[in-house]
């Protein structure tokens, strides 16, 4: 799922990170963007703040605040570019590491400006090409801070911040307790900064074209573009880039358009939630808050009207329950129970109080793990109960609206 989709004329889809030759080569990168200007740490922080750049790995936290926290720790930090992309429905980080890896490596240098240690955490399959590129850049004198490659295992939680930090410290890539923030003291003792690779690529663009340019895309409150991975019932599934606030319909159109009338759309991925298939709905934190979600890491899955949203959610919940890193009791016990209870509802094994039990379990697991995997899973399940309320009622009566082609 690593194709870039050209913007159809007239749509609000806007290519920035993915504009240009996209061959991943250093010479084309330098021809297109030139060398990275030199900045010190406070300039990088100021630039990130003026641009309003937020994390693209899911949480949407302002970059400049994390940079400041690490700078305030007063000890050299390890800066980690997070390209793990454990989310099965996401392909944007892989696309970025394939088509525009130099932007990621530029951004990594910027974020590591005050330090001596930078790491790119990426799936092993990407290492060969990245290793060559890192060597070429070092040879060309581009990178002051040496970059180490660390393999990201193919597991959903391996990309979680503290799991990435653990992997970089030579431990198993599983999340850790958050009482001590890794920006203060990571698993090896040094402060650690984990940023999604897309966040770093945007930083590299801001360093060249300025915060004002960055803000020309998106909305005043949520500036810039983001990479979306659009899949499901669309003609050309792939990665698209657009400003925050882009209409959901424009993203779907950029992925070739819907192949069938849509029932609902999953926004924000497996930790996101279902929204109505409303082409005009803006994809922004502000517009999605009423649905209890955010754009997250930009995953968009179109569900055709012929599919049952409860069945699809039960399938995803089962997959998420299989991905628990067997550490935290409420997650290890609760997610499989939540998934199987939802599965009973999805498969019309009705019993009294079934939806209430799903709701109870979702609330029971929320906030009770070392990482937010249970929270994200619960969010998805609760959103399905809301979005597919009519289906829940039908299933309890032994019917399925998708099968009957109603609604």
């Amino acid at each position, binding site marked *: 799922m690593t194709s870039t989709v050209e913007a159809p004329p007239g749509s609000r889809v806007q290519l920035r990170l993915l504009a240009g030759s996209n061959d991943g080569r250093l010479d084309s990168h330098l021809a297109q963007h030139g060398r990275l200007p030199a900045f010190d740490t406070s300039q990088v922080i100021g630039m990130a703040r003026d641009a309003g750049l937020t994390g693209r790995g899911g949480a949407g936290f302002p970059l400049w605040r994390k940079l400041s926290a690490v700078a305030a720790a007063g000890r050299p930090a390890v800066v980690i570019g997070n390209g793990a992309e454990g989310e099965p429905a996401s392909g944007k980080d892989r696309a970025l590491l394939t088509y525009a890896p130099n932007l990621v490596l530029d951004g990594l240098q910027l974020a590591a400006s005050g330090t001596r240690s930078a790491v790119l955490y990426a799936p092993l399959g990407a290492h060969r090409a990245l290793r060559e590129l890192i060597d070429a850049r070092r040879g060309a004198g581009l990178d002051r801070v040496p970059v180490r490659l660390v393999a990201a295992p193919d597991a959903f939680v391996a990309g979680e911040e503290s799991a990435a930090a653990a992997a970089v410290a030579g431990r198993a890539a599983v999340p850790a307790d958050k*009482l001590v*923030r890794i920006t203060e003291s990571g698993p090896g003792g040094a402060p650690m900064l984990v940023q999604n690779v897309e966040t770093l690529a945007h930083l590299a663009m801001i360093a060249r074209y300025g915060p004002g340019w960055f803000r020309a895309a998106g909305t005043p409150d949520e500036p810039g573009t983001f990479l979306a991975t659009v899949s499901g019932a669309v003609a050309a599934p792939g990665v698209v880039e657009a400003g925050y606030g882009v209409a959901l319909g424009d993203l779907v159109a950029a992925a070739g358009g819907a192949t069938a009338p849509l029932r609902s759309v999953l926004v924000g991925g497996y930790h996101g939630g279902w929204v109505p298939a409303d082409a005009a709905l803006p994809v922004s934190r502000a517009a999605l808050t009423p649905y209890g979600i955010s754009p997250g890491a930009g995953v968009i899955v179109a569900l055709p009207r012929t599919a049952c949203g409860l069945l699809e959610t039960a399938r995803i919940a089962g997959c998420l329950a299989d991905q628990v890193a067997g*550490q935290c*009791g*409420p997650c290890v*016990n609760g997610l499989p129970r939540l998934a199987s209870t939802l599965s009973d509802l999805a498969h019309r094994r009705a019993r009294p109080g079934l939806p209430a039990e799903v709701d109870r379990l979702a609330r*029971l697991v929320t906030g*009770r793990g070392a990482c937010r995997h249970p929270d*994200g899973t619960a969010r998805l399940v609760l959103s399905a109960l809301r979005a597919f309320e009519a289906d829940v009622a039908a299933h309890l009566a032994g019917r399925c609206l998708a099968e009957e082609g109603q609604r």
Partner: protein
Amino acid sequence: MNRLHVDWTACDGRGLCAELLPELLVEDEWGYPAPRGEMSVPPALEPAARQAVDRCPALALKLTRVSAGRAPGSS
């Protein structure tokens, strides 16, 4: 005010803390402590909370000071 923090990677779920601190914690169906409401500890419950922390066999239960200037969190 202090807050209770459970290190879920360490907690082995025998529910001792819920017995010692029933005002704040209740055992879930698997034996793990679940908050009744907020995890902040009112001054009157402070001694009981300290006892629960001291007696947690897995060293999983902690009391943390609620301070404003914490480093930013993320998901």
